């Protein structure tokens, strides 16, 4: 099962195995075209891993499988040594868009929700919600409702909601994709700070190269779908805290850009083979 895929330059099984993804493939139905083909990946505890790839390449599918919302058609997946059988409080999810927020609860209520479900009692619950809101700098907005918040503030609420339950793993699905550029960079920097302050393993999905560089310890680059594969995994050499611009940043950006382009081209090269699978 551990055959190195021909399209993967670097087999990328170099994490410590805290989260493992082994040769997973995914199709919506038997015989339907595969969205993902033989993807393998291993995440180390405490690392910030970014999956970078064009839209429609199945990045979100991988995240949904780690989250336990969907299951691979082939292959297996473990978290802390145990197979993934469904969603769980050890893997908090920060969703794309804002429709996971409960519009009838205020900011406080939204952040509190997970603790309530998990049965955490006051005053501990209150204290943890307050701390999480402070962490994302929403301490003064606790009584506001989601529809009264900007897009950036809504994503802060989602981050607070994911942090408050102390889940060791954060799964983030293009959380800043819908934000304007300024808000996006602000939240990237804050997420980097929050990640440094807490001890979380992050799987972060994006199609934005500079976002991947600012956040990731390692960056996994996917080919285009269908039959998307993990093309390469790059160690991010930039020291933290990271700054945009500067010669190192520029050089890495170019390198990544080239790799992303090559990954897409690899897809085009393969088109002939796909039909004869």
């Amino acid at each position, binding site marked *: 099962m551990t055959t190195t895929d021909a399209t993967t330059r670097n087999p990328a099984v170099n994490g410590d195995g805290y989260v493992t993804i082994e040769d997973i493939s995914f199709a919506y139905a038997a015989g339907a075209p595969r969205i993902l083909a033989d993807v393998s990946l291993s995440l180390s505890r405490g690392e910030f891993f970014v999956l970078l790839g064009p839209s429609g390449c199945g990045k979100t599918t991988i995240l949904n499988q780690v*989250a336990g*919302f969907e299951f691979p058609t082939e292959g297996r997946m473990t978290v802390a040594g145990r197979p993934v059988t*469904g*969603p*769980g*409080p050890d*893997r*908090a*999810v920060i*969703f794309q*868009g*804002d*429709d*996971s927020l*409960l*519009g*009838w*609860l205020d900011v406080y209520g939204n952040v509190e*929700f*997970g603790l309530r*479900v*998990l049965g955490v009692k006051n005053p501990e619950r209150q204290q943890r919600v307050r701390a999480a809101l*402070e962490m*994302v*700098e*929403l*301490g*003064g*907005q606790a009584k*506001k*409702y*989601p*529809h*009264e*918040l*900007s*897009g*950036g*503030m*809504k994503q*802060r609420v989602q981050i607070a*909601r994911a942090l408050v*339950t102390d889940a060791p793993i954060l799964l983030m699905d293009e959380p800043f994709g*819908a*934000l*304007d550029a*300024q*808000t996006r960079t*602000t939240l990237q920097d804050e997420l980097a700070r929050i990640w440094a302050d807490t001890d979380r393993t992050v799987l972060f999905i994006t199609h934005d190269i500079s976002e991947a560089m600012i956040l990731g310890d390692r960056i996994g680059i996917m080919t285009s779908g269908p039959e998307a594969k993990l093309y390469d995994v790059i160690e991010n050499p930039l020291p933290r805290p990271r700054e945009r611009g500067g010669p190192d940043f520029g050089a890495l950006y170019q390198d990544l850009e080239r790799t992303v382009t090559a990954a897409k081209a690899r897809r085009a090269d393969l088109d002939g083979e796909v039909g004869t699978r």
Partner: protein
Amino acid sequence: MTPASATDFGERPGAAPTGDADPTRTAGPRPRRRGPRSAASWSRRRIGLNLLAVVAAIVVWHVAALAKDNPLVFPTPIDSARALVELLQDADSRSELLITLWRVVVGFALGSTLGIATASLLGSSRVAADALEPVVHFLRSITPVAWIVPATIWFGVGDASMRFIVIYATVFPVILNTLTGMAQAARNKTRMARVFGAGRFRTYRSVVIPSAVPYVLTGMRLSLGYSFMSVIGAEMVAGSDGIGYLIYESRLFYDTPTMFAGILLVGAAGLAFDRVFVLVTARIFRRFYCGQVAR
């Protein structure tokens, strides 16, 4: 790490890139602050337009009645208004109205409850939904009036039959709208709940049902109108009191103005109940509308 810094980087509160609907809300962080077109001036404008439409309708009615020139067939608004005043001055007639309104209230309350309960069952169980949904669509296609005669055979002439009819009229719009509302609950919301370990029941109670509230209320509002429609028919056939019976009885004396007065009364009561229902529920359930305006 100051709480205020969340707004320091071009993140204007309310300037949501997702384009949330209500433009009055983008004025500032405080939702109650209104722009120059305040709620008061809007509603004054609306009331003005409403009155204009009513006056126009009365004028058209009056001209039509004058053209017909036979008050026994088609009374003028003035004749009808006179009959209406007489009706309202008469204690017996007033109690007829109260009887009808009580039937609406009781039937509507029971029917809505039954509708929400049924929809919750159908929405929570794939098996129940597959089995019963065609039955719901079959039954809802049958006008409640068709059941009046069978109802009198089962429950006798009187309140039980009429209650059955009003419940029948109420239950289906509530079921269908509640089901739609539950199906609309965003998948990311239910997934979010499952991440925290919420089971089916908890997800249902904390996510699916609250998401459905505006839909349930829309269904109930439709049903309230259907309650008024059906109660009149039921009283005509299966009753011995109420406004429906009064309208029906006026036929015996060829008292067309009273007939019209009864009809006007039903319409006015229906309108009043609708307004009160919307105002009260929009206030009580305001947060479930998530910034949208219920009207």
